[in-house]
């Protein structure tokens, strides 16, 4: 038995749904796996970019997008395992301090896609301390649905990069699979921003 199992934790689907309903204009990037399913389950949108692979790339992709679209709020929603694989990208983001980028890590402390093995975040790694250490000063945890308001305020404000570690239950809600057609979601996203084909 580990102590982390005793902590209060939010329901992942309810948290993501409530967060996204508060930021309807945001550009959303999702890390592969359950984070993509959660965002899709909250309602498909043209301005969602779902990753089905490229593990470790979600936050960096969000950085490229945030720098490209400085007047829009960009939010990356990913899992602890995906973020850990691209952990250095938090340093790269901190070096740029994009005011319009928020990183939201749904942390169940486990690799949910592959058999619920425990991940580093339930074996001693403190992701908020890591983010702060890299230079993201506005890094915080939440473990409740109400915490989504705290996250949404940052996304809407666009006054500094933020990092939210959201403690969620280690459960597996029903699969809700977004489109896997990469060119389709890319072209639909660009069209929704008013960008023309090359």
């Amino acid at each position, binding site marked *: 038995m580990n102590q982390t199992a005793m902590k209060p934790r939010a329901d992942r689907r309810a948290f993501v749904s409530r967060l996204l309903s508060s930021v309807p204009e945001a550009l959303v*990037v999702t890390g592969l796996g359950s984070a993509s399913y959660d965002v899709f389950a909250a309602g498909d949108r043209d301005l969602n970019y779902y990753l089905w*692979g*490229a593990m470790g790339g979600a936050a960096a992709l969000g*950085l*490229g997008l945030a720098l490209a679209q400085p007047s829009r709020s960009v939010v990356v929603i990913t899992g602890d395992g995906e973020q850990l694989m691209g952990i250095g990208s938090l340093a*790269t983001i901190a070096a740029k301090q994009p005011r319009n980028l928020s990183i939201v890590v749904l942390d169940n402390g486990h690799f949910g896609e592959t058999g619920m093995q425990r991940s580093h975040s339930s074996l001693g790694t403190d992701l908020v301390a890591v983010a702060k250490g890299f230079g993201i000063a506005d890094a915080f945890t939440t473990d409740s649905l109400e915490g989504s308001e705290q996250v949404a305020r940052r996304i809407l404000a666009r006054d500094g990069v933020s990092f939210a570690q959201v403690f969620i239950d280690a459960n597996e809600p029903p699969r809700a699979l977004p489109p896997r057609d990469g060119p389709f979601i890319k072209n639909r996203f660009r069209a929704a921003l008013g960008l023309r084909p090359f």
Partner: protein
Amino acid sequence: MNHTPTPAPAWQETVFKVLKAGGVDQIAYVPDAGHSHVIRSAIADSEIEDIVLTTEEEGVAIAAGAWLGGKRSVLLMQSSGVGNCVNMFSLLQAADFPFFTLVTMRGEYAEFNPWQGPMGKATQGALELMGIHVLRVSHPDEVEEIVSAGYDAAFEAGEKVAVLLGQSLIGRKKWERK
């Protein structure tokens, strides 16, 4: 620290001119001596976002995000960095993103460090295995033509292109610090 500024080789100035003329918006990099002029110029240019990376694959994802947002991002790296990128290159194929990278070569010509050999010799093959078209520059006179040809293929035709900047172009690394 006493870094005596030495003038950049003309070919490096040409590389930056080509990127600038092509409307590059972001330059992401893991440094290498052969890229130093372009990196300095990007930092000095208020219209270009310069992005220092902790590892090269971040630059692949950044390029995809930039394109999603309507901008052009170029990745600068050394041949060893290509190995770090291999799985992230899947993103370029899976969603058909344009991609342009400039790769300074090590490990294949006048190399004194055997640790550079394995990845340097596999660089072109690794890129091609992942569906990236490879062009190579071996002589300063070719820089403008080949870099601009690759850049245009990426951002005008949507291709994935790497231009390898050969060690014969870059020159032998000076290993003695004096």
